[in-house]
């Protein structure tokens, strides 16, 4: 590949947030990044309808909205059998940065979590990350979404990663980070 840049103009993005100021900001930022089409919606319900019509390549959503919040929106995107692309990368943009919220986002199938206030660098990094390093998907029990373990453990190769044997191995290994 000779180009040192990506042609983001071929991508369609969608942003869901109930704040008109945020919708305008993220829309304009994504356009400035080079995307040619950015669709916006004010809540999860409208977002879901628009998603099925437009089938964007990338989704960015807020967490707290009414009547359908960001979590339910993500769950529906991942689980709805009528969804044209359940593998779509989803970035959750939220001011709620408590660990419980991040874990909730992860368990609902969010690909990346981006904390407010958003910066040009952080938005760009997340978008490029979902392009260059897409997450493996996993279907286990009621969960379907990106594999919640981000990295393969290079130290432990056994079967039961959370078992006693594995934990003993991991005590000397600080390098393993978890998804989101």
């Amino acid at each position, binding site marked *: *590949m000779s180009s*040192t840049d990506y042609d983001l103009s071929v991508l369609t993005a969608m942003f869901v947030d109930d*704040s008109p100021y*945020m919708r305008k900001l993220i829309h304009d*930022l994504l356009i400035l990044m080079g995307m040619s089409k950015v669709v916006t919606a004010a809540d999860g319900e409208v977002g879901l309808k628009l998603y099925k019509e437009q089938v964007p390549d990338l989704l960015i959503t807020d967490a*707290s909205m009414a009547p359908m919040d960001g979590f339910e929106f993500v769950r529906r995107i991942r689980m709805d059998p009528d969804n044209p692309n359940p593998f779509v990368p989803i970035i959750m943009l939220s*001011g709620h940065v408590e660990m419980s919220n991040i874990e909730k986002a992860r368990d609902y199938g969010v690909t990346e979590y981006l904390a407010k206030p958003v910066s040009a660098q952080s938005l760009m990094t997340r978008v490029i990350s979902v392009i260059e390093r*897409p997450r493996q998907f996993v279907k286990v029990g009621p969960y379907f979404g990106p594999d919640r373990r981000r990295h*393969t453990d290079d130290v432990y190769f056994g*079967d039961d990663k959370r078992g006693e044997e594995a934990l003993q191995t991991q005590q000397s290994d600080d390098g393993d980070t978890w998804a989101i």
Partner: protein
Amino acid sequence: MTTKADKSDEGKGKPPSGQRSGNKKGDPCEFINPPNLLLAKVTHDLSLKHVQNLTESKFRPDKTRMQKMTKLITQNEERCVATLNEKIKQIEPVYRDLQNGTLPAREAFADDCKHIYGAAKALDHMPVIRITASLLRYLQTYKSDKPMDPAIFSAHLDALFNRNALDVRLDAPTKLVLTALETLVDHAIAASA
């Protein structure tokens, strides 16, 4: 361009198809690696759709573009601060009227609250977000024939006008104030149902 092969199965033995390895307890896992269509699209190179982890990025952010983006964020922030202050100033007469027992016009007041909520959300001002969200919930959900309670409006507006005394990181006293307001609305809505 260097790429990293998917090593998820390496060194772990061969798991049965569609299941994690061995006869372990728990639900069976099915791992799926969808093709990387985004990378193929942005590079116009279909062969890259098999790449799962690009270890050496070829993306070089354009500095001018980044500066424009940063400027846009700053401008938006300034616009939101101005809107927030202006709209809060606009609802000061509502507070004065409440002291005389006059309730605000529901729809117009809800519109003002929505503006404040939207601007606060863009600024990530958590106390104002929660105050206006609670107020909006009261305005939009209260269904009783009985008139709305001026004390609930006053309590929310008091907190809104004294927003600088509240901690944007939600310290314990701030949480207490916000939770009290939300509980007031919960009770009022429950009683009106």
